[in-house]
């Protein structure tokens, strides 16, 4: 059958029943849009996780003490002596409340030697203004971007270099101690997953120990010589410390994150697939209705010489047309939804530091024995995501677009197959008698 006729007849009929056609297309749009949105969002999130991890370096191993006494230089010496350990960085983390003007912000205190800072937080952290802090007992600090520019002052700068902020920490069991912290520099906002850089106050190890009332530290960051030695080295450290420390390596985190994102993706795509299946049933229903309504017309066409396959092609073409239009619109809508959701998510998370300070309250969790068993650097991924460092943009790849279009056409084509077959098999005289 003539290709142009097919298009014309098919289009003409769809155009006659615009509302019904629009609703049928809408079913496909919803299914395709949800698949596209879910895939591009989860791909974006996993890419963001991977890039955050990669800033920490693929050879990093983080050892967190599970004991209140923490680590000493004897521990770093022991680890340095292990085969394949190239860099060993002691880190002290804790929490404090930072007072700046009328603001009360819960911050992560990070004590680390300024020479080790770059290696520990990765390459995407940079100084917005000022300079780094001295490696001395002075509490001069680098201030995280969200603390200097709190969302409560709608993004205006609240803390300036050369000024000072007050840090509230707990000494002993009840009493609160305040310490004046000179501001030596302010950091740029960074997208680091493991280190909540934006909500941190970073100072020398000695200063942090004084502030948090300890003479030990609670974390050791180790860089293995190469990626293949990460796992053996991590295993060795686990053997040494047993339940006294938690050992996390980036490769393990990456694998776990990929696994979690992967299973969430599967779940979401299954749900989206169900919506496509519902769409398919809808298309089939509409097409069967259309075949019934057009039985007389099919009789006319057949009596004028349309063959079974011509009638079949006509109905299949209509179904495919619905699939293609629905698929294209679905991709556009899905992309819009995913970018919209990502924008909303980053907006919500950039507005959340006040929420996170509310969550941990005005009291301070540090002090001797207060460091707890945080999952990772400075309280772990959960605290870092709630403190707003998880921003991501959706990833809409060409294969997602093409795949979605193919799926839309397959679904609509499959749904149209049975009605088209039914239409093609009608006997001309029986069809003509049906009105």
């Amino acid at each position, binding site marked *: 059958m*003539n290709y142009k006729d097919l298009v014309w007849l098919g289009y003409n009929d769809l155009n006659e029943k615009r509302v019904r056609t629009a609703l049928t297309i809408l079913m496909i749009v919803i299914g395709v849009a949800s698949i596209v949105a879910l895939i591009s969002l989860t791909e974006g999130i996993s890419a963001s996780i991977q890039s955050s991890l990669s800033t920490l370096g693929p050879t990093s191993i983080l050892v967190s003490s599970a004991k209140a006494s923490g680590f000493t230089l004897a521990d770093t010496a022991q680890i340095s002596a292990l085969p394949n350990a190239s860099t060993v960085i002691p880190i002290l983390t804790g929490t404090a409340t930072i007072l700046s003007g009328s603001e009360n912000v819960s911050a992560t205190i990070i004590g680390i030697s300024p020479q080790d800072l770059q290696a520990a937080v990765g390459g995407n952290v940079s100084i917005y203004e000022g300079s780094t802090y001295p490696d001395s007992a002075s509490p001069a600090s680098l201030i995280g971007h969200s603390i200097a520019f709190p969302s409560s002052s709608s993004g205006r700068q609240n803390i300036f270099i050369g000024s000072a902020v007050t840090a509230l920490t707990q000494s002993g069991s009840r009493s609160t101690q305040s310490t004046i912290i000179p501001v030596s520099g302010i950091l740029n906002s960074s997208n680091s997953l493991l280190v909540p850089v934006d909500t941190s106050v970073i100072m020398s190890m000695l200063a942090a120990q004084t502030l948090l009332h300890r003479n030990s530290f609670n974390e050791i960051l180790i860089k293995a010589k190469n990626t293949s030695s990460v796992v053996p080295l991590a295993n060795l450290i686990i053997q040494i410390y047993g339940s006294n420390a938690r050992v996390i390596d980036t490769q393990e985190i990456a694998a776990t994150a990929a696994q979690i994102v992967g299973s969430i993706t599967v779940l979401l795509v299954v749900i989206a697939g169900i919506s496509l299946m519902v769409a398919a049933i809808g298309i089939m229903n509409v097409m069967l209705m259309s075949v019934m309504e057009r039985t007389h017309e099919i*009789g006319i066409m057949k009596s*004028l010489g349309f063959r079974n396959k011509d009638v079949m092609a006509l109905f299949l073409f209509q179904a495919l047309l619905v699939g293609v239009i629905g698929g294209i619109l679905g991709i556009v809508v899905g992309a819009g939804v995913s970018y919209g959701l990502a924008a909303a998510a980053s907006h919500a998370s950039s507005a959340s530091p006040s929420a996170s300070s509310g969550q941990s309250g005005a009291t301070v969790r540090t002090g001797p024995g207060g460091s707890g068993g945080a999952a990772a650097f400075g309280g772990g991924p959960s605290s870092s995501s709630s403190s707003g460092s998880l921003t991501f943009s959706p990833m809409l790849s060409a294969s997602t677009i093409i795949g979605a279009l193919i799926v839309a056409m397959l679904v609509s084509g499959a749904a149209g197959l049975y009605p088209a077959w039914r239409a093609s098999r009608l006997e001309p005289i029986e069809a003509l008698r049906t009105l």
Partner: protein
Amino acid sequence: MVDYSVRVSNVSKIYRSGDVEVKALQDISFTFKKGYFAAIVGPSGSGKSTLMNILGTIDKPSHGEVYIDGIPTSRMNGDQLADFRSRKLGFVFQAFNLINGLDAEHNAALPLFNMPLSEGERLKKADQLLVRLGLGHRLKQKPTQLSGGEQQRVAVARALVNSPALLLADEPTGNLDSRSGDEVIKLFREISSTGNVTLVMVTHNPDTTKYCDKIIYIKDGKMEKEVTR
């Protein structure tokens, strides 16, 4: 052996619904030579439309055989019959049977769908016939916007558009005034005079039958008589 365009051999058509049997056609046999202008005449309910549908290969006889150009139609499969209808057959239905979604010219051009012609060429062929039938000002109207007589003329144009070798017309002037009716008959006679088209028409009009080469009279599904001129 004579070169018959149509040969009907002992055709019967029995409709069954439950226990009730309607013998719409009983043991009908006749032949039309190529180029004949033939008429089928009979009272209402006598089986004329049933016979036309069988000649047009859209219905099958319960018994007997219809040969078209010497080929037994019962041996052709669905696609072969469809192909035959699209190339060689023109059919004016008693009930017009136009497609409501298509305008007059697209309805009239429909039988050309499988021809190696451009859309413009096909519509031009349809338009020429519609103009000839006095519908030049109705080309873009849908059937629901046309009168009964206008619809009938669109149906006539559609039956002629593929230059059929066998033209079947079931009361093609039934809804027309005498002037439009005369125009249709004039057109049919012109087509018939070329000698290439076999024309079979159901009619009640004695003025029309006087031009016919052969007239088949049926009553109650039986052939009453045939008259050859």
